[in-house]
């Protein structure tokens, strides 16, 4: 291997690493607030690309049907609860949250995105569809399990992934898609050939991660989420609703997944079931950060991207194997440095 190849691989690695950073950050975020290891994150990424691709083909995306069904279930659950509690305010909010908002987005997706619409608008509507799924998944799957242990939540997350990928096959079909990317000619930078796509991905990833950082550091809502993450009961006592915290964080993770999907869509062919491996690579990054430390998780995700790029050059058949086996030494290191054990199933 010469330096040129190495530089290209490194660039490839950093670009996919940047997407994994986004995923890892979102995973750490969701985990620290709700104790959910959000496996379906990757599915949402793949669905975003599939949605955008449907818009590009001038068809209504299958995501619309997923959203309608999910919103109907969430609305039913929430309204039943409101009726049982005889809480009119709660019912009104549910109608807005799980009725009106999804309806508006679905209507926009069905009627306001002609084939000729600008790419940015198509991207925005795709992102809105996917982001909206985040809180719906939380309401249906995880909110009723709020008091459960992380392991139970993990099993539920895997079940949710299974359900999503099965419905994904149904509405999107088995064909893979590659979406349009940032256009423009490649240019040279420090002796490297750089594509606008690569720059776009890196810049977007940095922007989103910074925005999340600022949100958590400086906004009241962000700080409330951190409080809920730190101590559930304590947060409840000082008036922070952990249900609202969960919903917000799932909205954020939906947005992060959608952006990841928009970024990664042009670089690789995505199928309805590609998301799982993407999500898992985000995880490996998150695990490096111990599911808690954002900068470490980001570093881990970049490492995963780089390892993957080099592995696909040397031993492409074993690409995924190498990436996943990388975590074993990392876990070994963590296991030596960890003293306090941990949770059971109850």
């Amino acid at each position, binding site marked *: 291997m010469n330096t040129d190849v190495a530089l290209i691989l490194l660039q490839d690695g950093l670009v996919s690493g940047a997407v994994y950073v986004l995923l890892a950050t979102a995973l750490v975020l969701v985990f620290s607030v709700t104790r959910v290891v959000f496996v379906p994150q990757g599915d949402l990424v793949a669905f975003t690309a599939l949605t955008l691709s449907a818009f590009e083909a001038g068809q209504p995306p299958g995501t619309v049907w997923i959203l309608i069904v999910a919103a109907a279930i969430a609305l039913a659950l929430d309204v039943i609860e409101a009726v049982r509690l005889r809480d009119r305010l709660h019912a009104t909010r549910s109608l807005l949250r799980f009725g009106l908002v999804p309806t508006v987005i679905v209507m926009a997706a069905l009627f306001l995105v002609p084939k000729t619409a600008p790419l940015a608008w198509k991207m925005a509507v795709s992102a809105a569809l996917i982001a909206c799924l985040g809180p719906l998944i939380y309401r249906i799957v995880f909110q009723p399990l709020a008091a459960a242990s992380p392991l139970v939540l993990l099993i539920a997350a895997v079940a949710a992934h*299974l359900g999503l990928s099965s419905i994904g096959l149904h509405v999107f079909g088995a064909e893979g898609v590659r979406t349009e990317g940032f256009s423009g000619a490649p240019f040279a930078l420090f002796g490297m050939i750089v594509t606008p796509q690569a720059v776009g991905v890196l810049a977007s990833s940095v922007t989103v991660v910074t925005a999340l950082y600022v949100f958590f550091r400086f906004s009241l809502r962000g700080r409330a989420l951190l409080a809920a993450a730190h101590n559930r009961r304590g947060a409840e006592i000082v008036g922070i609703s952990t249900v609202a915290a969960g919903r917000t964080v799932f909205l954020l993770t939906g947005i992060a997944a959608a952006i990841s999907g928009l970024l990664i869509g042009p670089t690789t062919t995505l199928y309805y079931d590609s998301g799982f491996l993407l999500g898992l690579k985000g995880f490996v990054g998150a695990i490096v950060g111990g599911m808690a430390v954002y900068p470490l998780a980001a570093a881990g995700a970049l490492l995963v991207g780089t390892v993957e790029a080099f592995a696909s050059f040397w031993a492409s058949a074993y690409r995924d194997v190498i990436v*996943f086996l990388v975590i*074993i030494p990392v*876990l070994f290191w963590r296991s030596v440095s960890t003293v306090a054990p941990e949770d059971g199933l109850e």
Partner: protein
Amino acid sequence: MTRLIRFAPLLALVVAAASPVLLPVYQVEVITYVMIATIACLGLVLMTGIAGMVSFGQAAFVGLGAYVSGYLSTRLGCSAWIGLVGAVMTAGVVAGLIGAVTVRMSGHYLALTTLCFGISFYFLVGNSEMLGRFNGLTGIAPVSVGGFDLRSERQGYYLALVTIVLVMAWCRQLLASRTGRVLRSLRSGPAIAETFGANAYLYRLMAFVLAAVISSIAGWLYAHVQRFLSPTPFGLTASIDYLFMTVIGGSSQLWGALLGASLVTIIKHELQDLLKFVFGPTTRLELLVFAAIMIVVLQKARKGLWPLLEQRIAPKAAPTLDIEPMILPHRRPKPEHGLTVVTASHLERRFGGLVAVDDISFHVKSGEILGILGPNGAGKTTLFNLISGALSPSQGELSFLGAPLLRASARDMCRRGLSRTFQHAALVQDMTLLENVAIGATHLGRCGLFANSLRLDRTEERQLLGWSRHLLDRVGLADKAFELAGNLSLGHQRLLEIARALAADPVLLLLDEPAAGLRMNEKVALAELLAELRCEGLAIVLVEHDMDFVFRLADRLMVMNFGRRIAYGRPDDVRADSGVQEAYLGAAA
């Protein structure tokens, strides 16, 4: 009716033995597959339901067993029996390596590692020339018994049936033993095992390795019944299937594995046919239904369906064992009355800038009760943890029976003669009272996995359970010996904790608020019991908020406030102490 239920397993076995003769070949094959899946799920029950660890890679261990035996058979011409040994050993070693790295950490790390391992296994096998890539291995030899090859579907069925009965019997035997009791305590965390002298890390590792070994047996069976292998049935989807079967069936009971494997296989089969008819041949919507069932089970019946079914058909299990109460033959020699058991001098423990325990000195003698009093946040619990080895002091010295305590773990302290109860009762809810007490005697037993599996432990078990029975008699819970600990009132739970602590045959007993939540008459009974134990030469340290209870019972008292000792001496002197009155009642009371 009850009698009928006792014979239900036997009846089921007869039906199972007769069915291949009566059913068409296709259904015989499906049932054989259900049995193989059940064996893999039995491994998961041990690991997930019993020891509280989740695996998303169990199919990889099934595959490991299958491929090792398949390779030995096709490439090296070994018999299936050599293949079985190879499969079991390889699975054991691989699981040992993975487990050694991950079981020390929180459960989701292990779960994610098994997931990564599962995916890696699939790709490794699929890309390995030696193992036939994605085309797989063909022409695996059938299992041969005494020169007779088991080739047909019906013969494969009987092989699976015999294997499942053996594995099930082994699991049952193991779970009812000393090793099994510790394993069953792990689901609620490592604290119980560690407090009573067992290394929770090693037991978790054991559960992980056992699960892998049992799964590899399922794989071996699969390889030699199917006689053809490809990577697909050992991929991630299969692992998720196994886990869901276990959870849906009921992960904490062995029968749950059978129920889950049967239900899931049959539902999936039927549903697939129906949905393909409605939505066309490529649909996989049955997975959505399956996922929905799983989520509803997790939300509404987290223990799975078997416990629900069990409630219906067998409302109350009658005790089948008759345990003779007995005193343990090889008890620890009690120290003579008045011997100093614990001495602490100038003990200090800091957490960052906070001094939780500040310059505390005291001692406890055998045949004496020392009460520790103090308002919330006075440092009582920290002191407790220092004595019991859960924390090590920042400064000062602590000695136990004359020997200094330096970084002694809770486990070591149990062996040296310290035993404790917890402020929030930490019992294994779905074990009987008798078994809960027997956990306390864990370190007094010798039989390990091997002896426990092969029933070489009968004498020891009779002693440990008899001793536990004796202690239940002492705390007045003998009539409930075979009830589940989860059904006890709070007061009874505390008594049970004391019985369990006594089962470790301690020299020093640490009691953390034993009277909290007790009714008046229960408190009187507890005080009598503690007084009796004192007469027998036990040293007791008691943290308690109930002033009356402590003042009446304790020989000496230590009062703490803000980490410092503010009074120390006989109850009457302490009662008269102005510092104590100030701390409890405000100034100038």
